[in-house]
C-alpha cells in the first residue's frame, strides 16, 4: 500500500488546517507518525505502508508543511505548546477512545517528546518511538550539566555536539534560510540527500519542500533558545519510550541520550548503523521495531504479561528482531555465534548439512532469547541447494540482515600428499561455500538497499603459511581476500563485510578434519591427537562468537581472535620472514 492510497481529511485546530492521512484497519491500534524538518508526512511512506498491515496508521503534515496550512503570522506560530494542541486535535479525530502509539523522527521526535512529557496528554499516548530528535528540555539539562562540570570528556561531548549543531545557528539568522531554501538549496536538496545520506531516488522530497523548509525555520526560532535556556524540570515521560539511535547521524551525537533513563523510566534502546534519514533508508528495520514495541505495549495494556522486549545480550539494542543466517551452525563457532545472536534477540536461521545439529541449535536459540529460529539442512558447497535456500529464506523469513558464512572443513597434509580430490573438497566447502553465500544473500541485501553485514569465517591460517595445511590455508586466504574485496564493493551500499580469523579454537573441526597421505587408522589417531591438543588449548568458541558480534557492531574488516592469531597477524604485517620460518616447522602430530 502506498501513501497515495491513504484516505485524507482535514482537522481544524488553532487557526490552521492539518492534512491527516489514514491507512490500515481503523479497529486496530493507532500508530501516529510525526515527520521532521524539512520533511512532510511523505517521508514516512515506506514505513507507513509496512505498518498498515498490522495497525491503523495515521500521518499528518505538521502546521506550515505539506498540505497543511501555515499559521499567521509565522513568528510564534510554531511553539511546542501549539504543536501539542495540533497533536491532541489529530489524536482526538482519529482515535477518540484509545491512546495512540506515537512515532517521531527529527523535529517530529522533538515535538513528540513534548507531547509525551506534558501532563495534558496523559492517557492519550500508549507508547512513543523516538528517532533522531531529543527533547529540548533534556538537551537543555544535558548542556547545563556539562557546562557546570566541564571535565575533559564533558567538554569534548559539548564541543562535538556544538559542531554538529551548525545548522541550528544558521536557522536563527533572519531571512537567509528562507532565501536559500526557496532558491538553490531547495533545488539541490534531493541530490544532496542521495549523495550524502545514500537515500534512494524516488518520489521524495515532495514539491512543497522549499516552502516547508522555509516555514519550518520557525520551529527552531520559536523554541530552541527558550527551551535550552530554561528547560522544564518535570519533563518525565508518562509512556514507555523506544529510542532508536542511528549511529551515523551527522546532526546528533549518540552521547545525547546517555542519561535518558532518568527521564524515561520505561526505556528500550535500539541502535542502527545508518545516517539521519532512517525512515527513508531503513524502513524494514523501523517497521519491525515499531511493530514489536507497539504490540508489546498493547499486550501489556490488555493484561497480558509483558514479553521481555529487551533480550539480555550485550548487543540486544542492535540485533533485536534482525534476521541472522549462520552456516555451519550445528557446532563450534557457528553454533556459538547463533547463540550469541539469539541472546541479543535476533531471529536465527541455523544452516548445516547436519540436520539434527542444526535443529538443536535452532531449538536452543529459541530458549535463550531468539524471537524465532529455523533450522535448514544444506551443504554450502552445493550451488543449487544454496540457491533454493536463499529463495526460501527470502520468501518465508525475509531478507537476511546479518550473514555469517562460517561452514568449513579441515584438511591437513603436505602439498605432495594432497590429491586433486582433496583440493576440490576443501575449496568447495571453504571457498565456494562462502562465495555462494555472499553472492546469493549479498545480492538480496544489495537489492533491498537497506544495509546489512556479512561475516566470513577465515582463519589465522589465511596469513600464517604452514607446510602442514597448504590446501586449508589457501582456501582461507582466498576467503580473507574475497572478504576484503567485497568490503570495498559493498561499502557504498551500507553493507559491511568482516573476516574473522579465530586461531586455535576448541571445536569439532579437528575430529572431522581430513589428513592427506595417511591410512584411515593413522588419520583417526591424528584426529584424536589434534582434538586433544585443541582441547588442551581450550579456547572457547563463545569468545569467537563475541568477536563476531563486536565485528558487526564496529564494522571491523579483519578480526584475529586468539592471542596466537593476533600475534601471527602482527608478524604477517611487520615480520613476514619470521612467519615463513615458522611455516617450515613440522607440527607435533
Amino acid at each position, binding site marked *: 500500500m502506498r501513501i497515495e492510497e491513504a484516505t485524507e481529511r482535514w482537522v481544524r485546530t488553532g487557526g490552521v488546517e492539518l492534512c491527516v492521512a489514514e491507512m490500515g484497519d481503523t479497529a486496530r491500534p493507532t500508530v501516529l507518525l510525526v515527520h521532521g524538518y524539512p520533511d512532510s508526512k511523505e517521508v514516512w511512506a515506506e514505513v507507513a505502508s509496512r505498518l498498515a498491515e498490522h495497525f491503523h496508521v495515521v500521518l499528518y503534515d505538521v502546521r506550515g508543511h505539506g498540505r497543511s496550512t501555515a499559521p499567521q503570522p509565522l513568528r510564534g506560530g510554531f511553539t511546542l505548546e501549539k504543536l501539542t494542541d495540533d497533536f491532541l486535535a489529530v489524536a482526538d479525530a482519529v482515535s477518540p477512545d484509545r491512546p495512540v502509539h506515537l512515532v517521531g523522527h527529527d523535529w517530529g521526535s522533538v515535538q513528540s517528546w513534548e507531547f509525551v512529557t506534558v501532563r495534558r496528554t496523559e492517557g492519550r499516548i500508549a507508547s512513543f518511538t523516538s528517532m533522531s530528535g531529543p527533547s529540548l528540555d533534556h538537551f537543555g539539562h544535558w548542556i547545563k550539566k556539562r557546562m557546570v562540570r566541564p571535565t575533559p570528556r564533558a567538554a569534548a561531548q559539548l564541543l562535538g555536539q556544538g559542531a554538529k549543531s551548525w545548522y541550528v545557528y544558521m536557522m536563527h539568522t533572519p531571512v537567509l534560510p528562507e532565501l536559500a531554501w526557496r532558491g538553490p538549496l531547495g533545488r539541490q536538496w534531493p541530490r544532496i540527500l542521495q549523495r550524502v545520506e545514500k537515500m534512494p531516488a524516488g518520489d521524495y522530497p515532495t514539491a512543497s519542500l522549499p516552502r516547508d523548509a522555509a516555514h519550518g525555520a520557525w520551529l527552531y526560532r520559536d523554541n530552541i533558545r527558550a527551551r535550552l535556556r530554561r528547560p522544564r524540570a518535570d519533563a518525565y515521560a508518562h509512556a514507555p519510550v523506544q529510542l532508536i539511535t542511528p549511529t551515523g547521524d551527522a546532526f546528533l551525537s549518540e552521547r545525547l541520550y546517555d542519561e535518558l533513563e532518568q527521564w524515561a523510566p520505561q526505556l528500550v534502546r535500539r541502535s542502527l548503523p545508518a545516517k539521519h534519514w532512517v525512515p527513508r533508508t531503513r524502513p524494514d528495520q523501523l517497521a519491525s521495531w515499531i511493530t514489536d514495541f507497539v504490540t508489546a505495549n498493547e499486550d501489556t495494556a490488555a493484561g497480558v504479561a509483558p514479553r521481555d522486549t529487551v533480550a539480555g545480550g550485550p548487543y540486544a539494542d542492535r540485533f533485536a528482531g534482525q534476521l541472522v543466517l549462520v552456516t555451519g551452525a550445528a*557446532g563450534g563457532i557457528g*553454533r556459538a555465534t547463533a*547463540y550469541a545472536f539469539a*541472546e541479543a534477540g535476533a531471529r536465527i536461521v541455523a544452516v548445516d548439512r547436519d540436520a539434527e*545439529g542444526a535443529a*538443536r*541449535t535452532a531449538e*536452543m536459540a529459541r*530458549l*535463550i532469547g531468539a524471537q524465532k529460529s529455523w533450522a535448514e539442512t544444506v551443504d554450502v558447497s552445493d550451488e543449487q541447494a544454496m540457491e533454493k535456500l536463499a529463495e526460501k529464506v527470502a520468501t518465508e523469513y525475509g531478507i537476511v540482515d546479518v550473514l555469517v558464512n562460517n561452514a568449513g572443513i579441515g584438511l591437513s597434509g603436505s602439498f605432495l600428499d594432497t590429491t586433486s580430490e582433496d583440493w576440490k573438497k576443501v575449496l568447495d566447502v571453504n571457498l565456494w561455500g562462502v562465495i555462494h553465500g555472499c553472492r546469493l544473500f549479498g545480492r538480496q541485501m544489495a537489492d533491498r538497499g537497506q544495509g546489512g553485514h556479512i561475516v566470513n569465517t577465515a582463519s589465522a591460517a589465511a596469513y600464517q603459511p604452514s607446510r602442514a595445511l597448504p590446501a586449508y590455508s589457501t582456501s582461507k586466504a582466498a576467503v580473507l581476500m574475497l572478504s576484503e574485496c567485497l568490503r570495498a564493493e559493498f561499502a557504498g551500499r551500507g553493507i559491511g563485510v568482516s573476516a574473522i580469523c579465530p586461531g586455535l579454537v576448541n571445536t*569439532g573441526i579437528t575430529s572431522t578434519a581430513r589428513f592427506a597421505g595417511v591410512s584411515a587408522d593413522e588419520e583417526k589417531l591424528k584426529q584424536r591427537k589434534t582434538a586433544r591438543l585443541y*582441547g588442551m588449548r*581450550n579456547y*572457547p568458541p*563463545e569468545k569467537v562468537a563475541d568477536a563476531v558480534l563486536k565485528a558487526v557492531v564496529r564494522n571491523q574488516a579483519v578480526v584475529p581472535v586468539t592471542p596466537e592469531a593476533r600475534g601471527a597477524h602482527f608478524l604477517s604485517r611487520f615480520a613476514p620472514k619470521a612467519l615463513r620460518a615458522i611455516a617450515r616447522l613440522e607440527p607435533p602430530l
Partner: protein
Amino acid sequence: MQRLAYACAEAVAAQLKPGVTEREAARMQRAWLRERGVNDWFHLPFAWFGDRTAFVNFRVPLQFFPTNRRLEAGMPFILDMAPVYKGFTADIGYSGCLGLNPVHDKLLADLEAHRELILREVRERRSLREIYEDVERLMTRQGYANRHRAYPFGVIAHKVDRVKERRWSPHLLGFGTQSLKGLASDALHGHRDGWSPLWSPYTFSDHPPRPGLWAVEPHLGFRGTGVKFEEILVVTDSRDPEQSAFWLDDDVPHVRRWAEEKSA
C-alpha cells in the same frame, strides 16, 4: 547414605527462597546432616547459584567455595554434598531452579542421556578415558560445554571408599582428612597397578573401570546455566553385564523427574 544426602538436598532446596546466599544454603545442608548424626565429610557442602552453576570464569579452586551470591527468581542452583556416616560415604549433586527456567529444564532433561551412556560404556568395560571423551562428545553434540573439566584434574568421577570412624575428623581445604587419606592411598596403590581413583581425561585414566564405588558427576554448562547430578555407580568384577555395573539407587530426584516427564 545416598538417600539421606538426597533427602537433605530436597529439604534444603524446598527452603530456598529469593535472597538466600550460597553460604546460607551450604550452612543449611551442614546443619540438616549434623542433626542426623553426620560428623565427617568427604567434602563440605557446596552451593552454587546463577551462572556459578556453570562455573563461569572459574579459574582457581577457591572459587568453588560458597559465596555471598544471593538467589533470585528463575535462577538455577546446585547443591553438592558428600557426608560420611558411620564410615559410609555419599557424594551427591542436586540441580534445581527457583521458579521457571526453560533452559534449565532442557539441560536437566538432556542429562538423562549421559546417565545411560556412562552405565552402558562402563558395562562394556571401555577405558575410563574413552568414556570420558564420549561423554564430552555427547555434550558437544547437545550444544553444551563440559563443565566437569573445571573440577580438580578435570574429573568426571572419583572412587569412594569406607572411611574409618574417628571421634575427631578434621577437614583440610574443605575435604575430610580421612577421605583424603583413603583417596591418596588408592592413588598410591593404583599408580603401582596401573589405575587411578580419579576418572579424568588424562592418560592415567586410560584403563578399564576398576571395581568399587565411583561417585560420578557429569556437569553440563550452557552459557550462564549449569546442571549436574552426582551419584554412586557400583562397579563389580561380575561377568554378567547387568551385575558388572549399576547405579546404586534409581530412586533419586533426577531419575524420578525424568520418569514423571515421560509419563506426563
